């Protein structure tokens, strides 16, 4: 199964006419992800789907999306990569640990200098540990999630002030 440029154009048109920001199409091992410019980043691909071929196209946002949705609980902070502040959010729901083991010093503290691949914490889901990385070069400005706390998907864990 292949998609022609014409097919993609047609699908893009359908997305534009809809009230949705994002379209995810899966056909016979091929996936197509479409997202309007200006809408939140496409959800991170999970390990199971990371190896799938992926075509990404962006459509102009034709109009504001009507929405009755009000986030409840901790807010998902959009990753604003152009700003000086960078927020690290939880890539999945789990128990957040700031240190590699109980009693050990935390991975980072306020003021720590981090690189994009610096580990800032661990998320545990049923004994499976996922490391969380800073994702930006800068200095830790604020730590928002407590050690040992349940954090939701998308919850802000800490803020980094970028260093140019």
């Amino acid at each position, binding site marked *: 199964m292949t998609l022609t440029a014409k097919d993609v154009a047609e699908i893009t048109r359908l997305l534009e006419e*809809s*009230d*949705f920001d*994002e*379209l*995810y199409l899966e056909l016979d091992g091929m996936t197509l992800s479409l997202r309007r410019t200006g809408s939140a980043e496409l*959800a*991170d691909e*999970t390990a*199971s*789907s990371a190896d799938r071929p992926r075509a990404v196209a962006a459509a102009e946002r034709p109009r504001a999306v*009507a*929405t*009755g*949705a*009000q*986030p*409840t*609980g901790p807010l*998902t902070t959009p990753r604003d990569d152009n700003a000086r502040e960078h927020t690290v959010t939880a890539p*999945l*729901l*789990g*128990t957040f640990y700031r240190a590699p083991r109980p009693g050990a010093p935390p991975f980072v503290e306020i003021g720590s200098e981090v690189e994009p691949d610096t580990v800032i914490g661990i998320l*545990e*889901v*049923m004994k*499976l540990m996922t490391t969380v990385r800073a994702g930006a070069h800068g200095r830790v400005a604020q730590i928002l999630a407590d050690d040992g706390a*349940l954090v*939701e*998907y*998308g*919850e802000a864990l800490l803020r980094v002030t970028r260093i140019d």
Partner: protein
Amino acid sequence: MAIRRILIANRGEIAQRIIRTCRELGIESVLAVSEADRGSLPARLADRAVCIGPPRPADSYLRAETIVQAALGTGADAIHPGYGFLSERASLARLCEQQGIVFIGPTAAQIEAVGDKLRAREEAEAADVPVAPGGAVESLAAARSLARTIGVPLLLKAVSGGGGRGMKRVDRLADLPAAIELAAAEAGAAFGDARMYLERYVGESRHVEVQVLGDGAGGAVHLGERDCSIQRRYQKLVEETPAPGLPEPLRRRLHESALRVARRLSYRSAGTVEFLVDVTSDAFYFLEMNARIQVEHPITEAVTGIDIVARQIAIAEGAGIGRTQSDIRAEGCALECRINAEDPARDFLPSPGVVSEVSWPAGPGVRVDTHIEAGSQVPPYYDSLLAKIIVRAPDRAGTLAAMRGAIAATRVTGVATNLAFHARLLADPEFAAGGVDTGYVARLLARAA
């Protein structure tokens, strides 16, 4: 053990439905939501909502480990899986068993026993319940010889399918090898299990199912039957109880057969045993057992006065069924219409979007189970069920009249719905006469075209 806090691993109207019973029982509810459902009505109604992942079910509602972690992290002592998603995956029930969390449903072993449709068939046979002539596809040669014995038309079914998924009709024996090859490949891709079995195709038949409650120790009661013959492509649209025009002895045999299956499995919690009833001969055949709460459970609640979710919780607490068969009486008739965001004018294509205006019917004997209000999103990631309208009246004619009024009083704008289909169905004399077979909806729609 008294359950104090339940994590609900579902969304939509069934999440709202479970939250309601939790409130009535003084149990706290924690709702696991995907990012797309953060702002939903059930997310606001629950005592707490936790976001478990992105909108796609594979990244959120289908992640057993994440669901169990959410329950552990929020201090929930039990998980209610609702229907669909993880409700019939043994993996969630097993994880709960390992982590000391109460799973409000059957045991993992029971889910496996009925999830394997071939094994469920064998259990039914062992419980002296009739099954349609058929058997496993062991090899092509064996399948050919089996097919000759059964005769055509026959159905080729996936062992891990069910609910009409993974099924092919074969009309000529010559087509069998190609059909097996194709169906096995499809089943392998869809269910990760390419095993197939054959069954005689029962032509004009009704879909009648029996609601059971089991205590997990061999005790079971039934709550009567539901007729779910109003289907389009195996998707139920309207259900009613009692099944109209069923001869009394046949009705009793269906109830008793369902109880025998439940008792044989020492079934725990609410379950449904589905049968095909041959209209021409009054013979019936075991179809499958659904090890979860059913979408159409409210019609049974309407006539019996029993809150099935509350019974599931009590059984999970180890308090038993709390009713004997003689305590259970069905009074009157009940009918349910599923209001879906789909467009009958465009071959029932799902119609996601934002609901701009909505008004639901009300009045004596009318119940609406819904998660939809003005401004609600109907995300494209999930099923299109917007609401279930349930009416109860002393007799069937009264029920039909009440439902006509309820459908006329319902208004949903912003997304296409199948309301007009329901109005048409309710006005049709053949449906009003009662006892139609599963081919009826296709004939009704063809008449219009």
